[in-house]
């Protein structure tokens, strides 16, 4: 199929509709407002629901209600709005409902800046809300990957009955790139039934209740252990990553999203200077591909591991967990809306190698 030029945010919205999403709730915030704008125009055309809510708090709770009622539903926002959604995400995780949540990240903390950032890594991967929960987090690095992962996101959300988050820096939302629509659109009518949804007893079955209250400590403990068993299964089965030139590399860059592209550019510059550098790119940042990264870093050829991030160093914690001290790990990045240059990344790599 031919490639089309798409703006990131609009591609996200279109990909969701093609993935069978028929329900969107959200609140405007830069740099993701094209998502609700696109949805407002195109959802009605497919008989779907678009609603601009009074806040991100309301939006995520509308998602909670719609998901409980059986809809394939999503919301999107940018960093400050994702902070407001955390309460709802915690409830949705506990009640075990599927939903897709997109975060087109901007610089923080506080009101920060509307420029691209990756400052919400901790929030996304550590559970930004209260309680023991996880969400699957995809971190695509280009618009084609956003589009390719959207259907997977909805499918995994249904499979594990939990939110799947897609996080990307604002650059991916705002830029235009060629996109190929590889998968056929999903007809929501063809999706598997959701026997747990509250759609009325019809006088046939016992009343169902969607809830997250487990007041008895034993029940609460059992509930948490059951959720954890699910998270352990996901950690075993759903890790995704991509490597480029990591075999026999002298240096390994670790980066997700846009910085992975910068790291590849830096690797090419280093190659010109005779230094072999590879890039390890987690595609799921939870579950994190710890073992695969360890394998890459533990190669005899590798002298240093450098993480490249658009923040002050968040994923580096996971990189250290993965590398287990077998190689030195260092960080290069820019925070709060600035994007590191390949030259800065090259300089950090050389310094890590002592050159």
């Amino acid at each position, binding site marked *: 199929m031919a490639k089309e030029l798409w703006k990131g945010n609009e591609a996200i919205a279109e990909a969701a509709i093609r993935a069978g999403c028929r329900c969107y709730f959200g609140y405007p915030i830069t740099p993701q407002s094209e998502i609700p704008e696109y949805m407002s125009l195109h959802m009605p055309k497919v008989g779907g629901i678009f609603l601009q809510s009074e806040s991100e708090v309301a939006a995520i709770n509308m998602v909670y209600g719609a998901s409980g009622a059986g809809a394939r539903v999503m919301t999107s926002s940018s960093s400050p709005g994702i902070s407001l959604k955390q309460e*709802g995400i915690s409830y949705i995780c506990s*009640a075990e409902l599927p939903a897709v949540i997109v975060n087109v990240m901007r610089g923080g903390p506080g009101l920060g800046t509307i420029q691209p950032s990756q400052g919400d890594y901790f929030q996304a991967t550590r559970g930004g809300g209260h309680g023991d929960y996880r969400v699957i987090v995809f971190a695509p690095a280009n618009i084609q990957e956003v589009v390719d992962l959207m259907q997977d996101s909805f499918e995994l959300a249904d499979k594990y009955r939990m939110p799947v988050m897609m996080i990307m820096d604002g650059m991916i939302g705002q830029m235009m790139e060629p996109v190929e629509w590889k998968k056929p659109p999903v007809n929501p009518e063809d999706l598997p039934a959701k026997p747990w949804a*509250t759609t009325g*007893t*019809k006088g046939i079955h016992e009343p169902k209740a969607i809830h997250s209250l487990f007041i008895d400590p034993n029940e609460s403990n059992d509930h948490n252990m059951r959720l954890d068993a699910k998270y352990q299964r996901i950690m075993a089965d759903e890790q995704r990553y991509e490597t480029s030139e990591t075999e026999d590399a002298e240096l390994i860059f670790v980066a997700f999203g846009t910085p992975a592209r910068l790291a590849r550019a830096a690797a090419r510059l280093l190659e010109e200077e005779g230094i072999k550098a590879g890039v390890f790119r987690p595609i799921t940042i939870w579950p994190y591909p710890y073992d695969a990264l360890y394998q890459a870093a533990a190669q005899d050829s590798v002298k240093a591991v450098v993480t490249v991030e658009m923040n002050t160093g968040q994923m580096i914690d996971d990189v250290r967990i993965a590398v287990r001290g077998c190689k030195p790990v260092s960080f290069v990045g820019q925070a709060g809306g600035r994007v590191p240059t390949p030259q800065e990344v090259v300089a950090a790599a050389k310094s890590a190698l002592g050159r």
Partner: protein
Amino acid sequence: MAIVYQKSKGLTDVELHYCPGCTHGIVHKLVAETLEELDVLGNTIGVAPVGCSVFAYKYFNCDMHEAAHGRAPAVATGIKRVLPEHIVFTYQGDGDLAAIGTAEIVHAAMRGEKFTTIFINNAIYGMTGGQMAPTTLVGQRATTAPLGRDREHYGSPIRMSEMLATIDGAAYIERVTVTTPANIIKAKRAIKKAFQLQIAGKGFTMIEVLSTCPTNWGLTPVEALEWLNNNMVPAFPLGVFRDITAEEAK
């Protein structure tokens, strides 16, 4: 033998946990009877709040969805938009609806969301132990207003029915109480009307019920009914604040 009274099919057999003399139970019964009489139990999704009625999801004999504190109107919006032919209601206390969830209820009314809200105003936070609510009366004691609510410090109680009645999307708003058999009959009539208007697709409907909390008011059940009549009714006048069917009839 003729059956003269039996429990509504709208309630499950789970034992209610409400304190003796608490009127939450009466309101549950009225909602349950209404759903049964309208023959919509199989087609209804109720949204339980956080507050003393948090376990409402175990009590109503229909599908239920428990929301976070104050978010019931947003959850109900999500449900009703996905299932427009279903009956959806929220059941919320005054902390839930008039403090933490004020934005959600106002905007649900503004959008004319076609669900029914049962708003239990007991002028206190029952579940968490008698703290001040936005509806606590001036001078009324609460565990966070030990000397009584001070108007200078906390302002005076918010009247949600009057406020929401200014919103075009609201179809029916009435304040009732359940302190006497006559009031209970009136309350039932109001609740039924709200659900009927929801079924007719008229817009947002809310019935505010002045309700007792003998436990946190520090009164016996009978004293609590008297206190409600003598103190709450003057501050929160009973009556219909918005009825678009009356306006349409004009």
